[in-house]
């Protein structure tokens, strides 16, 4: 027993040390830009990546062979979780911290010359165009949260009746959601600019005027999103137990009463999911906005200045700040504010919805 343990101990130690050495070597090569390259005829072998991967595998194997009974389960759990944790860290956690850091600099996407402290955060509240985008986005979210859910729920009721060809309607309403937002935006731009102007014989399209352009975005967004939400409602309505409905029928409840007293309370959880989905996705609206109006729209007087970004949502505003103005640091600060707002709103919304479910 002891012999095996000591054998394992040595093996684990050797693997751990070898792994750490290999990984450090790989990182050293990366930072000093020295490459170990072997020429094999037409293919060239470089060892930086191999060292890193092998090193990581050795460390994991070493962890596995550590002779401990107490922590063995924990180590196994860690090894199994490692790929996921690693990917999550590389793609989400680390970029987020880097982003926080950049929001305090004057980064232009290539380099930054100084730390600006909270200057970026202060500047955005003095920028009328940004405040406008923020307010417009909130309005857009409120309007859409109501309208998308209303339209989707009505469509769902329609698609759960015993009409002929219900399957076809379900598919037809869902289809717009399968088209990408950019393509959809351009299709609708054509409809607004070329088709509707001809039919209505108007000199210019709805997209040229700020108010009508904003409504156009809402229409397109509902068209795109209502079918998706409808499917969730259809599923929700299908879970309402038949015996409850029958009991209601026997008690003499009519259709409307059944809908408001039985069906809607029974699918409260579905409402939570749907409002949450519409809320967050409306907040993040970007592609339709970009393709349809690119944010253009005149606001004659807002906080004392004339704006030309009348239909620009916050996501597009952030994008333009970074890519059209080369102010990546400032855009990052706006993005962090956006993140905080979104996180707060989502948390509050889920909390309220959960409470309602319990009461039911």
């Amino acid at each position, binding site marked *: 027993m002891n012999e095996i343990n000591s054998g394992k101990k040595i093996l684990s130690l050797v693997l751990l040390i070898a792994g750490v050495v290999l990984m450090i070597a790989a990182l050293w090569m990366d930072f000093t*830009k020295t*490459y170990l*390259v072997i020429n094999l005829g037409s*293919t*060239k*072998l*470089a*060892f*930086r*990546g*191999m060292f*890193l*991967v*092998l090193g990581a*595998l050795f460390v994991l194997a070493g962890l596995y062979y550590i002779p401990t009974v107490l922590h063995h389960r924990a180590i196994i759990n860690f090894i199994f979780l490692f790929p996921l944790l690693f990917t999550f860290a590389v793609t989400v956690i680390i970029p987020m911290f880097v982003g926080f850091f950049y929001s305090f600099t004057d980064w*232009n*996407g*290539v380099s930054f010359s100084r730390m600006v402290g909270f200057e970026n955060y202060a500047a955005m509240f003095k920028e009328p*165009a940004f405040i406008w985008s923020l307010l417009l986005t909130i309005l857009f979210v409120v309007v859409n949260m109501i309208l998308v859910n209303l339209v989707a729920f009505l469509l769902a009721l329609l698609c759960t009746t015993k009409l002929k060809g219900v399957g076809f309607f379900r598919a037809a309403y869902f289809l717009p959601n399968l088209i990408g937002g950019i393509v959809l935006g351009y299709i609708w*731009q054509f409809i*607004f*600019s*070329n088709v509707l*102007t001809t039919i209505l014989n108007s*000199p*210019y*399209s709805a*997209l*040229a*005027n700020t108010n009508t352009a904003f409504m156009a975005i809402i229409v397109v967004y509902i068209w795109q999103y209502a079918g998706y939400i409808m499917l969730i409602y259809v599923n929700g309505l299908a879970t309402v137990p038949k015996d409850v409905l029958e009991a209601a029928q026997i008690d003499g409840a009519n259709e409307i009463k059944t809908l408001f007293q039985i069906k809607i309370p029974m699918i409260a959880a579905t409402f939570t999911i749907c409002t949450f989905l519409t809320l967050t996705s409306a907040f993040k609206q970007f592609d339709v906005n970009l393709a*349809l*109006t*690119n*944010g*253009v*729209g*005149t606001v004659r007087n807002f906080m004392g*200045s*004339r704006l*030309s*970004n*009348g239909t620009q949502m916050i996501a597009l505003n952030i994008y*333009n700040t*970074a*890519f*059209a*103005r*080369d102010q990546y640091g400032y855009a990052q600060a706006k993005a962090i504010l956006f993140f905080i707002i979104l996180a707060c709103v989502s948390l509050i919304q889920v909390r309220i919805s959960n409470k309602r479910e319990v009461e039911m």
Partner: protein
Amino acid sequence: MKKFLAILLTLAMVFTLVACGVSTETETPASSGEATEVAAGGIRLFNGKIEIAEPLNHAAEVYEAATGKHVEVESLGGGVDLQATLKQYYQAGNMPDIFVFEGAPDLANWTGMVVDMSDQDWAKDTDAGFTSEDGLVGFPYTTEAIGLAYNKSILEAAGVDPASITGPESMKAAFEAIDAKKDELGITAVIGYCANATELYWSTGQHLFGQYLDAGLDRDDTTYFDLMMNEGKLDTERFTHFAEMVDLFNHYSDPALLISGNYDMQVSGFAAGKYAFVTQGSWIGSSLTNQYKDQYAAAGNFECGYVPYCFEEGIDTILTNAPSHWAVYKDGNVSEAEAFLNWLAGPDGQQIMVQEAGCVSPFKSCTVVANDPFAAPVSEYAAAGKTSSWHWMGQPSNMAQDGTGAIFQDFAMGNEDVASFVEAMASVIPDFVK
């Protein structure tokens, strides 16, 4: 047996992982140019003009055949944000050796990272290079012109002599004369002018606005540009004259195009002979002879020419410039990149650039003339010395998109008149130049 299988599987996994590591490894240095041994001899050119991708690839092949040096041409364009792509390359350690930039705002990102090429042979052969605080850093590969383009056949049929258009009155008279014969000439409108701020903010907010900044001035005259950039002001008298010209365009443009049209409609309409004038620069020449060649042929392959945007009497220049330049990246393969650019500026390179790519050569020694409807008129203006510069390229990069473009659209929609248009422009510009 079970154990054996487990070991086998583990080995297979390790092998694939390591293989992945190796293959990415060999790719990265090859394109980043960091590991000189892998990248030796080859250079990479980041071209921002997708229209000339084919001729450039051909030029690269000819160059490789002549010198044995490989040039990889990477062409992007058509709505791709070039600078954003470049920044991604930079972050990934994958910078091309030669890359494109438009004007000072773009170049500001790369200060200190580009090579001064004033010692190169081509530098003595042109005035169109781009100079910044780092020296002569921009290689000009073409010249483009912005003037009021016209269809010679229509003007002749209407009995209007383009040379008679020298100021606002004569321009108005010419427009009226053509408008009166619209049905007879079979045209839709006198001018194809589009103020759609979503699609064509760059045409109005940059090119047309650029006429206010430069038209009629010497190439190095920055009076109005400085007034705007330093004090955030417009010269009210000059700008009012400019606004009156835009008002004339609004009035005589095709209503279907004016507010809700797009670039394709505008250029194809001109190619098809629907408009006597069009507010686009010389780059539409290649669209006429390639993309819309059927419409262009149906309209009789008419000759084209330029009149100046003469919103004031005495303005007799069109605006010509290199629309973008190529810079050489300091940490790239500098000597090879410079050698390629020198070759491209020489007779063999220019032959391809002019005849195949349809570029108007910015080099004095070049004698080849492009087979492009706008090449001859541009060369004439250049030879007569009647050209002004493109100082609009130095304006804040988002000013047209986020500010002035929408005001041109409001003006076209009739929401503004001349006076309030001038006022609105004057009120918006300080937001961008401060």
